[in-house]
């Protein structure tokens, strides 16, 4: 009964979403207040029914209702209760339900938090989101229904959730990732509304910015969690593999980053308008493309969902309608929203444009690398398949990021319209010398090695960090109280600096961990020990242990630091009872300056085991930096001016679409 209720609720949501897609849009066209006014209650209704539907599926998991095919395939009565809940989005069908629930949550949030948005814009925005929702709800209900039953031959026991996914990372990674992916639908809907009305001004950019920042912050956390999960759950000791599934989550992030910066220019200076609209469309389109690539099996990947060409075809049609339609609209309407303010060669506009160009080129290169196996096969035939490895991505991506970091340092100092070179030199010469000197000397002092990669990365990271410090120093000079002045700088400013600082932290983490990790695979008998730096690892043998739904060979490794007892590690090899799958459970001790990583390999007969021991300096900084970036995004969303100015803009936009002080086409 409960699964049918869930199915019915999803269908009702589909009907309401169909109404949402048509009625407010028609209302905006015919200027019918009542039809436009329906946008808000419909958004609330869709959200409530999808939440109900989601709750029903969760109920089926919690109560081991194996008559539901999806539950039987992805759960097991022995599965711990929190994994049962996480299993709701552990495979294709249920994750799609989460996807539409999150989409409706964003739409509902827009309807709640945009009280001051002119009604005709809100109606259009929510209609566009409703249209996207209709597409994905239909896809879910007609090709991948999570509520499908197997009433005639109900299995007595479920197949169990994929052991790789039985992990805290899985509980939180997909919801954050989807919040990010789907969050870009808000910027997308605002862009479509702007194209439809031809009204794209500072107020539009100001409405769009917090939503884009919020989605971007979620996506940042989502990607970082995914990378962290790969690091400790896959047990390979790596944290980024340039795998197609990783790439498709990274591309919307890069374009989203470009969009955030381009929106800043559109808000402050009224230029880059059609470019901003194109980025908003591209960010969401790449999210949809990601959904397609992960779910159609068109490209083989380690963590793709099950392959089903029929589903792929339906998704492709959906992509054609949503992305193709919006790009066609863009081609027709973009000239209407063109801006014509002027700016000089050295100006903040130009440096933000440089940022955009680098990020878009990086995205294009990742897209090419991801689709290249397919392109190659299309041209040279099936006998010529290739797999593109990390060398391609690293060779192209790292120099691009180095350029981006350099431009970032200058860009934050440059001013709108025009900046004199003398001013930049005066501000930045000290920062430049200090970062070059420190970046070269520090690695020499600490490691005694000459490694140009490390030095370059450190110089650039210091270039960003010292630039921030210098800026804070100058911004608070001549103020009676520096502390008070720091607070008064505003949340947007702090958000920007925090996110940029996060990028410097990530750069340090990536560079140190790639260059100074020690990875040892050794065969150890009980009592054997080996040392890495000041740490000594002693293998104390393996005992068998049983968990809730698995049995494990659990090793004990004593670690001493400088001869003193430090900690005890227990890496495991688990065999899951339901599927028989064997899973390596690495033991990782996280530290600010180093991670200690141990994983258990295979037994070698005579009581000895292959043990993998890694010493990974600064690896934690990669995720910590991403966390700082996300915090920066959140801070920017919370800036007071979005609330203060909203009322004024709302009125200004309905009266006159031209922002003061900007020439407008």
């Amino acid at each position, binding site marked *: 009964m409960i699964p049918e209720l869930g199915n019915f609720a999803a269908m009702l949501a589909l009907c309401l979403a169909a109404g949402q897609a048509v009625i407010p849009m028609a209302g905006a066209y015919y200027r019918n207040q009542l039809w436009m006014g329906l946008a808000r209650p419909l958004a609330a209704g869709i959200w409530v029914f999808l939440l109900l539907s989601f709750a029903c599926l969760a109920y089926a998991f919690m109560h081991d209702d194996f008559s539901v095919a999806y539950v039987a395939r992805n759960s097991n009565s022995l599965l711990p209760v929190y994994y049962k809940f996480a299993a709701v989005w552990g495979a294709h069908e249920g994750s799609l339900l989460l996807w539409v629930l999150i989409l409706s949550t964003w739409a509902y949030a827009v309807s709640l938090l945009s009280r001051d948005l002119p009604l005709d814009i809100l109606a259009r925005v929510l209609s566009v989101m409703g249209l996207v929702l209709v597409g994905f709800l239909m896809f879910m209900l007609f090709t991948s229904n999570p509520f499908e039953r197997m009433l005639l031959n109900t299995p007595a026991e479920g197949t169990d959730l994929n052991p790789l996914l039985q992990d805290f990372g899985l509980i939180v990674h997909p919801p954050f990732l989807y919040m990010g992916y789907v969050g870009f639908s808000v910027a997308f809907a605002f862009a479509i509304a702007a194209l439809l009305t031809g009204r794209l001004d500072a107020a539009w950019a100001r409405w769009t910015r917090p939503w884009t920042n919020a989605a971007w912050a979620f996506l940042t956390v989502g990607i970082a969690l995914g990378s962290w999960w790969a690091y400790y759950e896959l*047990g390979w000791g790596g944290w980024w*593999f340039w*795998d*197609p599934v990783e790439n498709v989550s990274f591309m919307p992030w890069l374009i989203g980053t470009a969009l955030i910066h381009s929106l800043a220019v559109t808000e402050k200076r009224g230029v880059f308008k*059609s470019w901003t609209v*194109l980025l908003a*469309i*591209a960010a969401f*389109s790449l999210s949809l493309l990601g959904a*397609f690539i992960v779910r*159609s099996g*068109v*490209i*083989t*990947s*380690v963590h793709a969902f099950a392959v089903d*060409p029929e589903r*792929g*075809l339906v998704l*492709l049609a959906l*992509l*054609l309608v949503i*992305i*193709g339609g919006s*790009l*066609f609209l*863009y*081609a*027709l309407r*973009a*000239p209407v929203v063109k801006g014509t303010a002027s700016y000089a060669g050295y100006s903040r506009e130009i440096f933000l444009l440089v940022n955009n160009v680098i990020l878009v080129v990086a995205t294009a290169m990742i897209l090419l690398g991801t*689709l290249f*196996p*397919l*392109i190659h*096969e*299309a041209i*040279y035939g*099936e*006998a*010529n*398949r*290739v*797999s593109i*490895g*990390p*060398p391609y991505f690293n060779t192209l991506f790292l120099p691009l990021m180095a350029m981006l970091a350099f431009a970032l340092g200058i860009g934050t100092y440059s001013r709108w319209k025009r900046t004199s070179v003398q001013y930049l030199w005066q501000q930045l010469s000290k920062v430049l010398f200090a970062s070059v000197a420190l970046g070269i000397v520090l690695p020499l002092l600490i490691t005694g090695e000459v490694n140009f990669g490390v030095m370059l990365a450190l110089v650039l990271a210091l270039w960003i960090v010292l630039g921030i410090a210098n800026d804070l120093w100058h911004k608070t000079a001549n103020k009676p109280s520096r502390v008070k002045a720091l607070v008064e700088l505003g949340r947007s400013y702090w958000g920007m600096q925090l996110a940029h600082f996060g990028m410097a932290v990530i750069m340090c983490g990536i560079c140190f961990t790639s260059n100074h990790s020690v*990875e040892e*695979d050794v065969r150890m008998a009980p009592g054997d020990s080996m040392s890495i730096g000041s740490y000594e690892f002693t293998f104390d043998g393996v005992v068998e242990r049983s968990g809730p739904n698995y049995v494990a060979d659990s090793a004990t490794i004593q670690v001493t630091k400088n001869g003193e007892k430090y900690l005890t590690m227990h890496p495991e090899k688990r065999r899951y009872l339901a599927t028989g799958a064997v899973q*390596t459970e690495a033991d990782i001790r996280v530290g600010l300056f180093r991670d200690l990583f141990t*994983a258990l*390999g*295979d037994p070698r007969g005579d009581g000895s085991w*292959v043990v*993998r021991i890694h010493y990974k300096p600064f690896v934690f900084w990669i995720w910590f930096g991403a966390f700082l970036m996300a915090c920066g995004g959140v801070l920017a969303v919370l800036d007071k001016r979005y609330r203060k100015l909203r009322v004024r803009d709302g009125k200004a936009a309905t009266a006159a679409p031209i922002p003061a002080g900007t020439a407008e086409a």
Partner: protein
Amino acid sequence: MSNRAKLFIPGFFFVSMLGLLLFGLFRDPNLLPSALVNRPLPEFSRPDLFDETAVITSDMLKGGVFLVNVWATWCPPCHVEHPYLVEISEREPDITFVGVNYKDDPKLAREFLDERGNPFKHSLVDADGHLGIDLGIAGAPETFLVDATGTIRYRHVGVIDNKIWDEVFEPILEQIK
């Protein structure tokens, strides 16, 4: 080109990509003719992955049926394929599994096999990819079936799983044996 027409570029780009993805959906993921089928296995002499002072030569791979699998740790499909190879190698003791570690870091490759099981009786290192060129491979993974006379009887591009093994490899093995 007029400014107006330029605005259609993103849409045009998208539609061509869509065409590519459509093609991707409808290809047969496991089909592959090869110029080498029914020709002898090329001669080679390559270092042993687990003992770099030892050398494995093509002469050692004679007598009995061999399965030569070209793989690398940087290749995600190889990760997918690996557990099947381990399982099949246990099920088919009569076939000698030979791994060609293609353009890879030998250290990573050893770690990979230690951790996930080693289906290969012989593992050889093809660091510069020359053996790959001799075999005419396009990427990883690829698998060759070699009969008792040292003749390549079948070439498979892409991942092997249980279904492909049963439907494609078994019938060919029937003929070879």
